[in-house]
């Protein structure tokens, strides 16, 4: 990161947009403004169009000769398939209410990051080719012809949208830039324009079962390692069944929880919880990915990757599926899964989820048969099924970051809070304009959590970072909990940059630390292996 936070703030100017009209403002392809393109072998593995060596920094992007025709036909097809796309192309009045709702605009000031202009990048071409007014009046009606520079501009700006939907909440017509971005990215894919940070996880997930490409034996090693750690810290040896048939529940969580710090502590929290309540469950190495980078690629790829969940539930004979802490995973499950792949439930043992511990029937998951772990744990807590000692988290002053997708694509707001408040004694909310349905993105959603665009990420992270700094300074908050694996990775550099001194954790890490286990030894260490006595002293 080249700029210091104060310098970055100085570089933001909302009041002096470029002198040139946005249609005439040239693209800036400086390194750091774009993510690396998909590698040839990755693109070939998932059979996406036009695999080749290329770089967004080059003048020649090596597009197919008939690229204009491909885009035209691609738009036509999507206008016919999605009412959302057609309506959102037509009804925007450019009132500008969305403008300062986007974290990338707030942190950068580039007008093309106003959601309205981001959509206009595509709308202008739509008007030119598909509307009477655009054909007759041209630029007066906001139309412009499709050129190579327009394609390049799409790549720059539709990969500066994290599909967080904050703008959509404020739009008087509910125009959803996430939907527009999805269409634009699908169109770009038709020409072979993509980013490796999304395509490689997609390819990995397809063949190896998870984004990170952890193979089954390695997956087992990691899980065993965590089981050992839990035993070290608690004296209790938990079971972590893998790929076992005949269990009641299949548990699926994002692979980031298995792979990286601090997600692994959340994973340990899950294992301890399941052990303690005696849950009859299994993990799967084949369906070892809760997340779905297909969502950031195309509807078809999202469906293909998501299908594994029901496919594996059928093979293993599970009655329902429990899902871990992940953001976009829950957008897919809540708003797409049953619609896309519900037909795959035929011939399975899946039924409306019922907690075997409390008897609660999760009627709100009657179609998908998938329950969010925060709902599940909150239900355990309200039935007093867990023995908790929140004092073990007393060195923490905790706030909660609502992830965009569970907030605005589901409405999972109070369940994680109920869990946190049961396992921590010191909880503080960030300002109301930055939480719940108004929450701000971590700056790295929708597959943009890659390091080569760190400047863009830190700019996008400003609203969240600043809200965090506010509670850090006001209440001494030193921990931000979240229910998303991408957050657990992206919020760390964000906090280091905007609000140093705040740690990031998953909600079930806090649960694991507070959970009293039968037969446990004196708990001297937390799940990070840190001495609780020392932490208490420091606090």
């Amino acid at each position, binding site marked *: 990161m080249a700029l210091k936070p104060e310098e970055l703030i100085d570089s933001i100017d909302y009041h002096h947009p470029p002198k040139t009209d946005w249609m005439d403002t040239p693209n800036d392809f400086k390194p750091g403004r774009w993510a690396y393109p998909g590698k040839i072998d990755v693109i070939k593995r998932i059979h996406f169009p036009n695999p080749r060596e290329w770089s967004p920094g080059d003048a020649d992007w090596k597009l197919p000769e008939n690229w204009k025709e491909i885009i035209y036909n691609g738009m036509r097809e999507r206008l016919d398939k*999605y009412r959302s796309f057609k309506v959102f192309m037509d009804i925007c009045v450019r009132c500008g209410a969305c403008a300062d709702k986007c974290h990338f605009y*707030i942190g950068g000031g580039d007008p093309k990051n106003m959601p309205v202009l981001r959509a206009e990048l595509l709308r202008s071409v739509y008007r030119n080719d598909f509307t009477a007014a655009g054909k007759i009046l041209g630029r007066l009606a906001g139309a412009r012809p499709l050129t190579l520079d327009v394609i390049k501009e799409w790549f720059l700006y539709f990969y500066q949208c994290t599909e967080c939907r904050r703008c959509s909440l404020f739009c008087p017509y509910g125009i959803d830039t996430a939907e527009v971005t999805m269409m634009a990215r699908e169109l770009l894919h038709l020409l072979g324009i993509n980013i490796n940070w999304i395509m490689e996880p997609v390819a990995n997930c397809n063949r190896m079962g998870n984004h990170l490409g952890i193979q089954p034996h390695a997956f087992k090693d990691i899980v065993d390692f965590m089981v050992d750690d839990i035993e070290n810290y608690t004296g209790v040896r938990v079971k972590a069944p893998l790929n076992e048939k005949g269990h009641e529940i299949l548990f699926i969580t994002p692979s980031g929880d298995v792979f990286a710090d601090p997600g692994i502590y959340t994973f340990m929290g899950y294992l301890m919880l399941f052990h303690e309540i005696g849950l009859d469950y299994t993990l799967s190495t084949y369906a070892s990915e809760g997340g779905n980078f297909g969502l950031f690629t195309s509807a078809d790829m999202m469906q293909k990757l998501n299908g594994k969940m029901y496919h594996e539930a059928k093979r293993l004979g599970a009655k329902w599926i429990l899902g871990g802490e992940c953001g976009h995973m829950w957008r897919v499950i809540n708003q797409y899964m*049953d619609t896309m792949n519900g037909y795959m439930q035929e011939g399975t043992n899946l039924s409306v989820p019922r907690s075997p511990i409390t008897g609660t029937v999760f009627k*709100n998951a009657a179609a998908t048969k998938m329950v969010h772990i925060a709902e599940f744990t909150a239900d355990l807590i309200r039935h007093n099924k867990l023995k908790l000692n929140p004092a073990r988290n007393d060195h923490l002053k905790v706030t909660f970051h609502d992830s965009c997708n569970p907030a605005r694509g589901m*409405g999972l707001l109070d369940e994680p809070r109920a869990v946190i408040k049961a396992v921590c004694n010191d909880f503080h909310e960030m300002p109301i304009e930055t939480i719940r349905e108004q929450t701000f993105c971590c700056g790295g959603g929708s597959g943009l959590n890659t390091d080569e665009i760190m400047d863009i990420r830190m700019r996008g992270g400003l609203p969240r970072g600043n809200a965090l700094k506010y509670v850090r300074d006001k209440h001494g908050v030193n921990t931000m909990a979240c229910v998303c694996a991408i957050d657990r990775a992206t919020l760390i550099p964000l906090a280091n940059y905007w609000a140093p001194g705040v740690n990031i954790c998953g909600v079930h890490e806090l649960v694991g630390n507070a959970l009293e286990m039968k037969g446990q030894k004196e708990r001297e260490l937390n799940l990070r292996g840190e001495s609780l006595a020392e932490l208490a002293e420091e606090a």
Partner: protein
Amino acid sequence: MKALYSLFFVFALLLVVLFGVGAAHLNMLFGVWIPYVAMAVFLLGFIYRVYDWAKSPVPFRIPTTGGQQWSVLPEVKQNRWDNPTTVRDTVIRMAFEVLLFRSLFRNTKSEVYKNENGGPVVAYASAKWLWLFGILFHYSFLTIVIRHMRLFTEPVPGFITLIDSLDSLLQIAAPTLYLTDVALVAAATFLLMRRILAPQIRYLSLAADYFPLFLILAIAISGIYMRYIAKVDVIAIKELTMGLVTFHPHIPANVGISFYIHLFLVSILLLYFPFSKLMHLGGVFLSPTRNLPNDSRVRHHENPWNPKIKCHSYADYEDDFREPMIEAGLPVDKAE
């Protein structure tokens, strides 16, 4: 520049009438045929646009959820009107959206600055002006349209007379001043000035954003001019308008040029409507992020073009990794 183009265009429209009626005496054309064509284009165009949207399916239920979901936990209270799961609550959400501009009411304004220590601050302030003038504009417009129906009905239904008398409640001036005339001009002026003066809004505005504002302002001003300054012969005008609705078009004497200006500008608005952003009037009802319940996890929604793409199967996965899986002690379906 874009604003000036639009303003010039509205002036050009005025010249067209002044020339067409004032000099060339094409009263039938401007008083009858253009309004007929405009009305036909508006009605057919509007219906076609809505039909064209409705033709595309809604493959997924993608409401933007604006509050707590329906939960089976009794202490978690659903925000039913911002995150509905039933048809009834979705209708309520839409009613709030369409009638009260609920989403726009959320509006905030962000500012970035440095505090006294040089530290960054992002602040959010409530910003209800756009909502206020937006709603004032739309309801004034609606009231004015309803009031005008007295010119197209005989006898005039009671509710129109009632709205008319409510609108002139203040009893200022003669003829009495309509509140909505003032409100419409004030609100449209606010919306226009906001576009011209706020640098961000000016930057994202198209000529197509200024034109309807200038046009509506010109319509309003020409109407006000007719009523309060030119004091046109309303009896003669009603003779003309009743002729239009009863399909016995007829041009009475005594209809001044100001009426033709007003009528022509309204005709242009009607003609322009189906081809423009003004179609948000129809589109707001069709937005899938608002008009659907958040219930895809609860009940099945059918996507008519579901491609049913097959996932990479477990069998293929096991074929790839069988040996290391066996070695690691993981269960497999086919031992060899």
